[in-house]
């Protein structure tokens, strides 16, 4: 019981931190909404373990825990693709900036006689 309570406190803390980030508009609200939804599901699974079993049965999976693992695997896959996109976008911005500076400072040497 004590572990469950501790878990709930930690999850609630994360949930509230995300709400704080949303208020300060530090992260895109669409992304935060996805994270909050996932956290909400985890909190509900903590509070009502039987409900997660029922949800698992509903989608044809035997146990609630398995359902959780499959969902998390999908989430991590989504997250890694998202990270690739974000890192690529940031790399492209850096490239554009460096290229712009380099082109502005380009040196032109005319050949002899031209």
């Amino acid at each position: 019981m004590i572990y469950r309570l501790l878990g709930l406190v930690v999850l609630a803390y994360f949930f509230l931190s995300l709400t704080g980030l949303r208020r300060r508009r530090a992260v895109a609200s669409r992304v935060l909404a996805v994270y909050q939804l996932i956290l909400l599901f985890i909190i509900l699974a903590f509070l009502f373990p039987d409900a997660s079993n029922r949800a698992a049965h509903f989608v044809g999976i035997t146990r609630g825990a398995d359902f959780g693992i499959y969902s998390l695997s999908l989430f991590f896959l989504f997250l890694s693709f998202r990270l690739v996109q974000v890192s690529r976008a940031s790399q492209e911005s850096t490239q554009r900036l460096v290229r712009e500076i380099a082109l502005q400072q380009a040196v032109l040497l005319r050949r002899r006689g031209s």
Partner: protein
Amino acid sequence: MNRVAFLVRSYNESAEVVRENMSALDRALGSRGGWDVTVVFVEDGSAPALALRPTEFGLAHADLVFVRHPIRLGPGAALETAMEYVRRSAAPFEAIATFDPDGQHVPEELCTMVETLLAGGVDCARVSAVVMGSRFLGTTTSMRPARRRLLRAARWLLRLFYGFQLTDAHNGMRVFTRRALESIRLKSSDFSYASELLEELRKAGARLHEYPVTIRYTDYSRRKGQKNANALAILKEMILRKLVP
């Protein structure tokens, strides 16, 4: 008079090797008339910086544009910088050639490739065409068997991914028409740019021709060039580009 641009990128190259290759290019240009040539040389943030001032390149038959990236971006990004210079330039370049100054490529052959493109009488501003160098149609000196196998595998992957039937997927010697160059925007900063470039050309419906060239593998170029282990990273990029456009 045909306007031709030669795009050269360099990262941590030895000053001596660069000077040798630029002189070889200049000799090749000197033996030809009727071209108005600009060499766009992109120094990709080498550390230490290239110990060669632009005035020491020894180019007597071409204008030189020297561009230096303040930090290293990678070979694909360096080529894109050179291409961007040409795109922004008011000069009506007709043919745009690329090669590496590490001694693997023979500038004389690159000039012949340019001649081949221009001799075809194509309207370079309207027709998207590229002449690609192929070491498998030409000759290679001292190529290691592992590299040969890898490049053959790349040929099949290229066919699978983009439908191109090229014999040499990753050859740095290429000559583009202005129109072909306009259709390319490289996002890959590393060596996977070569497959991205082909993908862009496929989208633009470019006509691709291969030309036999010589690739000289020297100890210097092996040390400097692509490692075979990069192949996996390139394959990963090719797959990712399909999944996350």
